[in-house]
């Protein structure tokens, strides 16, 4: 067998061997990233530029009002409502000062397709300070904030689960 063929085979074999090692490492790499990490903090950071953009787009006098009237309170205000469990999982509603009604009735802001919900179940609205409040509207099965049943209109902490039948929603920045 000619010298050249053998040299080519020798080098080719080493190349193939290393190729196998590299392919194996690629498989490991795809395995390493096989988990999904949901970082609450990261999501907040991601939401921040959006918020900043909205603030910049707001009319000047309103911006002035925001920075004047309790800026810290404002900065921690939730910007959206997220459905985390139930048939509507993944739905988000931007919070822009309007009242949000929840229930099976067709004119609700969030129409719950849920046998355990009443037609007018609850509403979420901002009070004068911009704090978001949840109020049960006399539903049959009740509205739960964390694990306690609501009896009076209650301020909603960020990220606290509000449970209506099979649906869970929470407020996020």
């Amino acid at each position, binding site marked *: *067998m000619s010298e050249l*063929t*053998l*040299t080519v*085979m*020798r*080098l*080719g*074999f*080493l190349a*193939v*061997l*290393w190729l*196998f*090692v590299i*392919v*194996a*490492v690629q*498989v*490991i790499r795809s*395995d390493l990233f*096989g*988990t*999904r*990490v*949901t*970082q*609450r*903090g990261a999501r*907040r950071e991601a939401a921040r530029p959006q918020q900043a953009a909205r603030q910049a787009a707001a009319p000047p006098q309103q911006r002035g009002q925001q920075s004047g009237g309790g800026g*810290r309170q404002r*900065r*921690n205000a939730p910007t959206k409502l997220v459905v985390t469990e139930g048939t509507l999982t993944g739905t988000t509603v931007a919070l822009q000062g309007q009242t949000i009604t929840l229930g099976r009735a067709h004119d609700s802001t969030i129409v719950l397709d849920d*046998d*355990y919900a009443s037609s007018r179940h609850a509403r979420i609205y901002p009070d004068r300070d911009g704090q978001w409040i949840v109020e049960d509207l006399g539903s*049959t*099965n*009740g509205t*739960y904030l964390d*694990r306690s*049943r609501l009896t009076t209109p209650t301020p909603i*902490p*960020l*990220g606290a*689960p509000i*449970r*209506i*039948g*099979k649906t869970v929603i929470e407020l996020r920045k």
Partner: protein
Amino acid sequence: MSSTTNPSTHHTSTIGAIGAPSRRNTELALLVFAVVIPVFAYANVGLAINNQVPSGLLSYGLGLGLLAGVAHLVVRKFAPYADPLLLPLATLLNGLGLVVIWRLDQSKLLQSIKQAGTAAPRQLLYTAMGIALFIVVLIFLKDHRVLQRYTYISMVGALVLLLLPLVPGLGANIYGAKIWISVAGFSIQPGEFAKIVLAIFFAGYLMVKRDALALASRRFMGLYLPRGRDLGPILVVWFISILILVFETDLGTSLLFFGMFVIMLYVATERTSWIVFGLLMSAAGAVGVASFEPHVKMRVQAWLDPMKEYTLSQAGVGGHSEQSMQALWAFGSGGTLGSGLGQGHSDLIRFAANSDFILATFGEELGLAGIMALLLIYGLIVERGVRTALAARDPFGKLLAIGLSGAFALQVFVVSGGVMGLIPLTGMTMPFVAYGGSSVIANWALVGILIRISDTARRPAPAPASNPDAEMTQVVRP
């Protein structure tokens, strides 16, 4: 930044698996690759030595491919979520070993001094038996946690296996080490199987005792000193490994067992002091035994000054070995890219050229580049074992996986370190690559257990129990 009002929501993160693919097709693709590489190597050896494609190419290729295919189908059926890399990596190593053993069979020199020329078909037979055991493990071991029940039976079994070579009439003293038994014409090395059985015992024992070992200790000079009664087992294991060393003159096996125990102890307790103790005790034991056991003493001398040993051996002085130096020369003449398969002269090592010293042939014919790839493949097997241990959800599986992969890693280190002159040479075999039935069969069983654990570990978790909070709101009221 503004994390004053509700800190609990800020740093929470949840980790969930994405749909947990089974990755069996990846395994199949890699497996085809792992069979094609040895076939290529086989053709290369034939062309280099005999100037023609060897006549056995089809039968060897099909044989290896068939075995790998059957193993893959069994994994697909009985361990569908297993790690996709373990089987192809082991197959590739086994195939490369077969090729190099066959290449040494072709050597006229080796044929003239012993019944060489038949090692490769036998190794293929051993491979078939190994894969058969692998399949048996996967089919009958439905859940590795069953092994936990046999903790103390494993201890007795391992001790029996280790002591078998010392039984008169059964044990065989081959080349200065009493680690074989001969049954019905076959010589078996029980130590290879004892490795797995002992790992089962250590895992079961440490799972129960790890809290006592980790917590009930006094702090002294920055080290955690364990209580005497907790130190007992490590002393017993150390003593047994020293006994093996003395009576069977098998440095490698005793190092392997003691090292495996220390690794598992460290993983179970997270106490660095165990590693310090382990290193001190193994060093003391090795130095003590080496100072009065002639066989071990000779090995140490060959390690410290291989050239002197070589000269003495060439001068005809008995009791000296020329192999260490020859292995170093083989690595040296291989250089970076090697001399090419079938074109080296590592058959000059003669005795044990295809078992203990097979790495020297790899070093000469594939060079540094080939040896590094080979060691990386071993490294990947160990990495997959450790990864399996990390992913395992039960402590027994974790400890067993880390013990088995630790033992595998130690064995590779002890053999390759010995052949390359880093540590004294020991009579152990390179897993999968070296010629030897016990080694190949036992290591296939080891990979089988690792695949079983990884299947359990990577299987998607069962759906979480329904949230108790949900019961309150999902009530149908009159």
